[in-house]
C-alpha cells in the first residue's frame, strides 16, 4: 500500500513536473548552444528581461516593507477592522489576475476614470512600464504578509514586552527581537514574491499592450515568440524562468533546514 502511494506520487511528479521541465531545456538546446545564446542577443528579448527585472525590483521591496508592516500590526496588535485588513491582503489571491489587469485599464486607460486627466498631464500608465509595475505589485501583494502572519501570531507579544521592560525602544525591539524571530519566514516570503513577480502573466498581459522592446516582460515575450513559431527562442527564454523556479526551490529547502535547526 505504502509503495503504491509513493509510486503514484512519483509517477505524477515525473509526468507533470519533471517531464515538462526536461522538454523546456531539451527544446532550448535542440539547435545547439550557439542558437541558445543567440536568442539573448535579440534586442526584444533583452528588453523583456530588463523590464521583468525592473518590475520585480520595484514590486518585491515594496511588498516586503508592506508585508512586514501589515503582519506586524495584525500579529501584534488588536484594532478595529483587523479581519477586514486580512481579507484585503488576500484579495489578489482570490481575484483573477486578468480581472486585476482590466481594473487598472478601467482606472488609468484612455477611456478610464483618470484617463483624460492623465492624458492632459502626459502621464502614461496603461500600455507603459508604470502599468506593468502596478499590476505586478498588485498580484504579488500578499506573499510576504501571508508568510509572516501565522508566525507572528503564534509568537505572541511576550518577547517584545520583555524587551520593552528591559529598556529597549520600539525600533530596537523590532530590529533585535521581532525581525530575527521571523527572518527565515521573511526570506521565504521574499523568494515567493520574487518568483511570482517575474512569472506573472495575466494581469501584466492586459495592461502591457505587448509592444515588443517596450512593454513586453519575459512571460509575454515567451508567449509572443511561441505564437510566431519561434519555438527554440521561446523555450530558451523559458529556461530562465525555469531556472528561477529551481533556485526558489533550493532556497526554500535551505530556509526550511535553517529554521528547523534554530527552532
Amino acid at each position, binding site marked *: 500500500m505504502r509503495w503504491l502511494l509513493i509510486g503514484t506520487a512519483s509517477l505524477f511528479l515525473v509526468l507533470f513536473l519533471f517531464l515538462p521541465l526536461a522538454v523546456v531545456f531539451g527544446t532550448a538546446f535542440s539547435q545547439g548552444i550557439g542558437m541558445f545564446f543567440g536568442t539573448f542577443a535579440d534586442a526584444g528579448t533583452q528588453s523583456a528581461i530588463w523590464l521583468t527585472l525592473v518590475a520585480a525590483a520595484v514590486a518585491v521591496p515594496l511588498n516586503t516593507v508592506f508585508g512586514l508592516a501589515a503582519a506586524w500590526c495584525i500579529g501584534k496588535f488588536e484594532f478595529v477592522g483587523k479581519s477586514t485588513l486580512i481579507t484585503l491582503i488576500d484579495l489578489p489571491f482570490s481575484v483573477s489576475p486578468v480581472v486585476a489587469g482590466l481594473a487598472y485599464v478601467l482606472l488609468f486607460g484612455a477611456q478610464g476614470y483618470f484617463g483624460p486627466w492623465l492624458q492632459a498631464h502626459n502621464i502614461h500608465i496603461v500600455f507603459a512600464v508604470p502599468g506593468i509595475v502596478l499590476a505586478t505589485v498588485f498580484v504579488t501583494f500578499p506573499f510576504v504578509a501571508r508568510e509572516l502572519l501565522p508566525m507572528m501570531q503564534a509568537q505572541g507579544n*511576550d*518577547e517584545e*514586552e*520583555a*524587551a*520593552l*521592560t*528591559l*529598556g*529597549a*525602544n520600539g525600533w*530596537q525591539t523590532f530590529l*533585535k*527581537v521581532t525581525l*530575527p*524571530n521571523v527572518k527565515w519566514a521573511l526570506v521565504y516570503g521574499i523568494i515567493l514574491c520574487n518568483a511570482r513577480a517575474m512569472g506573472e502573466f495575466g494581469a501584466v498581459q492586459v495592461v502591457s499592450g505587448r509592444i515588443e522592446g517596450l512593454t513586453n516582460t519575459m512571460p509575454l515575450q515567451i508567449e509572443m515568440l511561441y505564437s510566431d513559431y519561434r519555438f527554440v527562442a521561446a523555450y530558451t527564454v523559458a529556461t530562465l524562468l525555469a531556472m528561477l523556479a529551481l533556485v526558489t526551490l533550493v532556497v526554500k529547502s535551505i530556509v526550511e533546514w535553517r529554521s528547523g535547526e*534554530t*527552532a
Partner: protein
Amino acid sequence: MSITASGITKSFGGFTALDNVDLDVQAGQLVALLGPSGSGKTTLLRIIAGLEFADSGSIHFDGRDISRQTAGERRVGFVFQHYALFRHMTVFENIAFGLRVRPRKTRLPDAQIRKRVGDLLDLIQLSTQAGRYPSQLSGGQRQRVALARALAVEPSVLLLDEPFGALDAKVRQELRRWLRQLHDEVHITSLFVTHDQEEALEVSDRVAVMNAGKIVQIGTPDEVYNHPATSFVYNFLGNVNLFNGRVDGGTTYIHHAKTDHVVFVRPHLLDIAREPAGENSFGATIKHINAAGPLVKVDAVTEWGDPVNVETTQERFRELALIKGDRIHIVPRDVAVFQEGRSS
C-alpha cells in the same frame, strides 16, 4: 523602593478587571498577589509594570508619580510566566540584552557588561550554560535566566507574573525557596502574582488576596490564613468544609437543617471519634481513605448526606484503626462563621 497603587480601575470592553484597587508595597518587601484566575491580579501587575495603562488611578514609586511613564522608563524587572526569553539569543546574550540596548552615553563598556552577566550567571548557577539557547534549557533553568535578565538592569522593583506556574511541582518548590533566598540577599522590592495559596503563604512577607477585581485582604501570611477577613479568603486559602449552622450566644452549632449561617471548618480542624463527643459532633460514614502523606485524608458522608473531608494524623489513624465503610463521629475543634454567608 516602595510601590503605591491608588484607585486603579481598568476595564476591557464591558468587563471590569480592576475596580478601584489600592495597594501599598513597602520598600524591600516580597509581596504576593494571590487570587483565582480572572481576579485581576495579572492586570494589576502589568499596570504597575507599565505594560498596560489604567483607566483611572495612579502608580507611585517612592512617592513619585510614574503613571504616565513607559515600561522602560519605570525601570522595572518583569518576569513572565512563559519566560519570554529571546529564542534566537544565547543565555549570555539574553541576560546582556538590557545592558546592550542602553543609549551609548549611559551604556557600560563591553568588559563591564561581560563581568556583570558573568556574576549573574554565577548567581543563578548557570555559568556553564552561557552559550546555550533557551530551547536547550529546562523550564526551571529558563525561569532562572529570565530572572537574571530582569535583574541585570538593576531594576527599581521586581515584578513576577506567575513565575513558577509552568513548572512541575518539585522544581516549583525548589525555585520558590531559591527566590526567597535571593530576595533575602538582594532586598529588592518584589511583587509576584500567583494562584497557588501555598506558594504565596510560603514565600512572601505579605499576601494581598484578590477576588473579582478587588483586593479583599492584605496582611502577613499568618494574618490572612488564621484571621481571614471574608469567607472568600477562608475558602481560597485552604481546603474547607461548609456546613449549615446556627450561632447561639457566641457558640456555633453545626446543624443539618438549612439555616441562615454558613459554618466553615478546615479538614485538619475536624477530629474523628468512635463515640459522640459533645453537642457539636455528628455521625458520618467513611467513603475513602488516603493514607499517603504526612496527614491521612478521610472522605466521609455526614448522616444528612453531605460530603465532608477530614485530615487526621497518622498516629490517630492507626489508633482508631479506621477502614472504609466505618461509622464514625466527627468533632469540630474550631469553626469560622462569616456574616455574608456562602461565598460562591
